[in-house]
């Protein structure tokens, strides 16, 4: 088993390498010149040239990439053009807020989405089902930044009970959590419903009923354990997705997280921060996928056996 995960971890390396190439290419295709950006419009041509030399921008692109890569492997992602602070430091400073948000969003998505899907499936083809399914579809379709603004309008302006910005108390977390989690919640609800309908018809559920055990046990022990397997897959995929969502959430609610760091960096053409930030996001996505795989093994003994036999 450990072998399997070591293997998976090693597979992550080429992906991250690919990401580093992609993001390096994207950033260096940008028309703006960082040296110009740094020095502002009043700078002389001479100063700009000097700075370019200093930043290594006069070297050929592949040399620049090589320098970037070797430094990145040493944990050095360069320095921010704007603040001159090491990029990794900036990222790590912002990361806790983003991680908190992403985890809370996921927690919200599961605690609301799962029961919603279960309820819809148990009441299949009734108005309860229709309502739950429609709610999920709406959650999947409305833009989350709009949800954020509307929540703010309702809960910070009309009935001022929650603060509209900042990151100081638990009250600051409520609206961002909903905004970040709503799409994932909808996806989980839909997946849970269809998975439930599939599992409910399985022979082993009938076998369980024939044993005369309580309905609650049939649901939790026999049905939900099987329902969870595809739901976890989807939740894992959408966790990466919702990591992207922090860009929105953090912007709307003025939370100093990683998403805002990247958006601000793009606006300011602060390319080392963009590179480092995106690479860091990709690393997070990779790790989440690995954790999902681990969770599979816990949920499904067949998968566990596969992992064991995998070389």
């Amino acid at each position: 088993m450990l072998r399997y995960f070591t293997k998976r971890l090693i597979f992550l390396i080429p992906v991250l390498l690919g990401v580093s190439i992609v993001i390096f290419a994207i950033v260096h295709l940008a028309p703006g010149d960082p040296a110009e950006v740094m020095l502002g419009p009043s700078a002389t041509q001479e100063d700009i040239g000097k700075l370019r030399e200093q930043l290594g921008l006069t070297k050929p692109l592949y040399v620049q990439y090589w320098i970037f890569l070797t430094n990145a492997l040493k944990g050095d992602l360069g320095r921010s053009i704007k603040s001159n602070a090491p990029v990794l430091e900036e990222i790590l400073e912002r990361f806790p807020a983003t991680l908190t948000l992403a985890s809370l969003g996921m927690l919200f998505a599961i605690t609301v989405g799962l029961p919603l899907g279960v309820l819809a499936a148990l009441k299949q083809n009734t108005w309860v089902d229709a309502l739950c399914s429609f709610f999920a579809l709406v959650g999947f379709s409305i833009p989350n930044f709009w949800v954020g603004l509307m929540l703010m309008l309702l809960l910070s302006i009309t009935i001022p009970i929650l603060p509209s910005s900042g990151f100081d108390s638990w009250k600051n977390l409520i609206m961002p959590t909903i905004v970040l989690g709503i799409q994932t919640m909808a996806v989980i609800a839909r997946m849970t419903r269809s998975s439930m309908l599939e599992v409910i018809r399985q022979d082993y559920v009938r076998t369980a009923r024939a044993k005369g055990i309580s309905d609650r046990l049939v649901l939790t022990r026999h049905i939900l354990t099987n329902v969870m397997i595809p739901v976890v897959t989807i939740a894992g995929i959408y966790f990466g997705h919702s990591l992207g969502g922090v860009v929105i959430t953090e912007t709307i609610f003025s939370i100093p997280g990683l998403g805002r760091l990247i958006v601000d960096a793009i606006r300011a053409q602060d390319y080392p921060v963009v590179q480092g930030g995106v690479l860091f996001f990709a690393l997070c996505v990779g790790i989440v996928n690995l954790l999902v795989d681990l969770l599979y093994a816990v949920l499904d003994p067949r998968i566990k056996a596969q992992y064991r036999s995998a070389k």
Partner: protein
Amino acid sequence: MTMSEKTVPASSGSGGALREKRRSPWWEVWRRLRRNKAAVAGMTVVILLLFVAVFAPLIAPYDPNQTNIKIRLQPPSAEHLMGTDNFGRDMFSRVIYGSRISLYVGFIAVGIGAVFGGILGAVGGYYGGRLDNFIMRCMDVLLAIPQIILAIAIVGALGTSLLNLMIAVGISQLPRYARVVRASTLTVRGQEFVEAAKAIGASDTRIILENILPNCMAPIIVQSTLGVAQAILAAATLSFLGLGIQPPTAEWGSMLSSGRQFLRNAPYLTFFPGVAISIVVLALNIFGDGLRDSLDPKLRQ
């Protein structure tokens, strides 16, 4: 030629009976789709919105870009159904015109993603081996970056314009089409009619275009319908962040963004464009769901 006629290998036989048979799978899909009330409602709304987008100049009561400081920030009224913004522009007209950009961006971005992703998937699936492996690893790389962040980075690099927005959203959606087409290609590749086409010496390009792609149409159509919905959302998100369509163009995301500072005093500036986005995306999703169910009756409950 319609695609339904292509779903059957280029056989020599023709005539009424065979033609009837060829049409039937898609006819069957249409029949099932019609019975799905939600899907029909979704489709109707989508068609209605296309109509609104095309005939925007006839429907909109005012010029969407006509500023008039004297009537700025007016709440909804009989003259201005959705109020006016901080430049005194009629919000209703701007929302109507906004449908043009949203649908345009949605369809073109999906077009870009589906065409390039489709080609990559078909080529990878058809040839297999190292090429396939390489393509799929590249897709894994794109998938490793959260979609919206990838799109933001691309727009950031290329600069903000309508075209760049569509390219960014298209590229960020590319992997899913590549995967869907590859999966279908793999199932079709081994079938007899492909072997037969090879045997009569058809070129690979021709086999892919004439035999393989038409047989992948069902999943591509479903994926594209849902993809348009997501592309519209992504484009609006980028515009909202100031990285997409720039003011003063009437676009829902950027309208929301500029309305945001007036949230307290003029909430209708953010309310209506958001409703518009939600309706389009919801309709497309409902329609896409229905389409998927009709194309794959096994999934239907």
